[in-house]
């Protein structure tokens, strides 16, 4: 251990970097967080950022509109590459959402106090990411106005959806995930909406927050059932989040395509999802705490822990890459061996090497205490991992589809302007929603922060 570096998880470190800054009371956490929404004037920076994001979202509207007019031919997809950007981006966005559920549900069950100040916006991030993800398979159908075909409704044709197909499992998994995430988020918000209702000065605000809070009055009887429901939701969301990305990996692994048909896919997809999700939480948390002066609530301890989770899940993902290699050579299946060779030497090899660099090599810097405590490094690392995870999905989708069994079925894929416009447009939509969220709802759970104040004051006694 180098000089001056305290041991990894000692009481000393916990004291040096607490989960909440010192000297906060119930009143002061309430004031500080609710003031961001209620009294703080909207800054010029917010308007500029919102305008940029909203313009990109406008581009999404144009891209989707043009797609509806012309059809999926405006994209770079063609047989044999029918999936392309739409599926790459779908899997990427869904994966990003998973950290939100992990932070809010799994860390809640594990009684990790450091989750408290980051769970609210991580859950919001989940919802917005699922919204962005949902767009892709919908428009990829080519006729999004027929999307209701995927739901089992009594039609005049007498037909039901193919329940044995992973694509239908996807419909159920993603729609359940969206619904449960929304409920989890909203239930968490109810006490805070009541706080905003009671503290709002302007009448329209009082009415809006009042209606949303549904008359919450903090009754002990209500809290009793509320806590029970919240705990149950956390317990339900935990297997749900694992199942959702497993089901998404089935989209690939059920198919008999080289590079897809492997049993490692579900766990490795889930780990990858959490990996990219934590990266996105960091990408949002670092500017958020800076801009709104929340360094006392989102402390270095949080950033450090998230970096550690990233490192751990990154290693699971690395293991997954290694196993893909190993299994293809060990099985001796010539199509699988050929696919691995194509990853290393084929036309898309640069993407594969970039993916190894972003997802495996660079994140090893996070072993260092100094790096984990350098906010700039963490921010850059979070972007690197997001890029890496996007490349992973690109490699999985494109290399396997362009190089399957028969050379006559090989092809090449390159995205068009409209592919990029749609992808960047969803990023605009995501950022727009995040901007609106931090402006109108408390980005940190006020009620849970008060609970944390109570717990930490008990610890001191």
């Amino acid at each position: 251990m180098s000089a001056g570096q305290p041991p990894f998880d000692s009481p000393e470190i916990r004291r040096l970097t607490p989960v909440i800054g010192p000297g906060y009371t119930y009143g002061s956490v309430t004031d500080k967080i609710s003031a961001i929404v209620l009294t703080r004037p909207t800054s010029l920076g917010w308007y500029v950022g919102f305008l940029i994001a909203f313009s990109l979202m406008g581009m999404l509207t144009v891209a989707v509109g043009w797609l509806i007019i012309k059809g999926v031919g405006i994209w770079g997809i063609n047989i044999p590459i029918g999936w392309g950007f739409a599926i790459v981006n779908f899997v990427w966005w869904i994966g990003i959402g998973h950290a939100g559920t992990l932070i809010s549900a799994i860390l809640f069950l594990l009684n990790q106090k450091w989750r408290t100040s980051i769970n609210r916006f991580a859950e919001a991030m989940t919802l917005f990411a699922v919204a962005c993800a949902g767009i892709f398979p919908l428009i990829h159908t080519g006729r999004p106005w027929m999307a209701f075909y995927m739901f089992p409704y009594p039609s005049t044709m007498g037909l039901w959806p193919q329940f044995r197909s992973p694509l239908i499992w996807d419909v159920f998994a993603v729609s359940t995930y969206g619904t449960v995430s929304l409920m989890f988020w909203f239930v968490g918000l109810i006490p805070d909406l009541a706080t905003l209702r009671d503290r709002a000065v302007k009448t329209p605000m009082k009415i809006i927050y009042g209606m949303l809070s549904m008359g919450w009055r903090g009754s002990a009887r209500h809290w009793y059932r509320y806590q029970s429901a919240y705990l149950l939701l956390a317990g339900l969301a935990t297997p749900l989040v694992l199942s959702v990305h497993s089901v998404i990996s089935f989209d690939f692994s059920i198919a008999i395509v080289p590079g897809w048909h492997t049993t490692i896919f579900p766990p490795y997809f889930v780990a990858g999802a959490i990996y990219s999700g934590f990266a996105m939480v960091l990408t949002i948390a670092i500017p958020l705490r800076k801009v709104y002066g929340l360094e006392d609530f989102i402390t270095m301890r949080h950033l450090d822990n998230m970096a550690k989770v990233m490192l751990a899940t990154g290693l699971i993902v690395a293991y997954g890459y290694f196993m893909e290699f190993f299994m293809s050579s060990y099985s001796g299946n010539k199509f699988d061996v050929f696919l691995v060779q194509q990853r290393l030497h084929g036309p898309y090899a640069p993407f594969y090497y970039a993916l190894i660099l972003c997802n495996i090599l660079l994140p090893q810097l996070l072993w260092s205490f100094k790096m984990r405590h350098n906010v700039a490094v963490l921010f850059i690392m979070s972007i690197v991992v997001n890029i890496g995870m996007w490349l992973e999905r690109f490699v999985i989708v494109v290399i396997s589809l362009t190089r399957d069994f028969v050379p006559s079925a090989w092809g090449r894929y390159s995205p068009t302007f409209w592919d990029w416009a749609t992808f960047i447009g969803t990023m605009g939509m995501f950022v727009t929603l995040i901007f609106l969220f931090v402006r109108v709802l408390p980005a940190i759970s006020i009620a849970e922060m008060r609970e944390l104040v109570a717990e930490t004051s008990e610890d001191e006694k």
Partner: protein
Amino acid sequence: MHLHRSHIYGVMGEFGDPEELIHAVQKIREAGYRRLDAYAPFPVEGLSEALGLKRNLVPAITLLGGLGGGLTGFLFQVWANVSSYPINIGGRPLNSWPAFIPVTFELTILGASLAAVFGMLALNGLPQPHHPVFNVHRFSHASSDRFFVCIESRDPKFHLADTARFLQSLHAHHVSEVSDD
């Protein structure tokens, strides 16, 4: 006093921290009051025990919701594939139940979660736009940094002046009448 009773929802005492609140609730229950509720800006540990809350139907409702969702999901898939629109594909079994598990699982979670949330809201009587406790001016602090206990007038032991005096004796920072309209 009797005339007043119909216009009074109860008497409310205000406290500064969770320990004071729990202490007060314990004393109030020891004094024999049963119709009371406490209000806090966050779930206070030990408060439900102090109030003697035991019955909680949320887990049972959640279980029912989960069972309902899962059974509906599974049986529907079996019915759709075996009875409503059977398709023979190379003699494969119509009731291929392993392939029905993902949807069954998702619907179990969906049913249980919907039941947990809506069950909790229904048992709590929410949404409820107005409640007499909101008539107390200082009650707006119940959602930030103050703790309240309200002894309700429907309690047989309730007597406006005596109950108010009793709350004062528990060192409540403020004691106020809660009007019923």
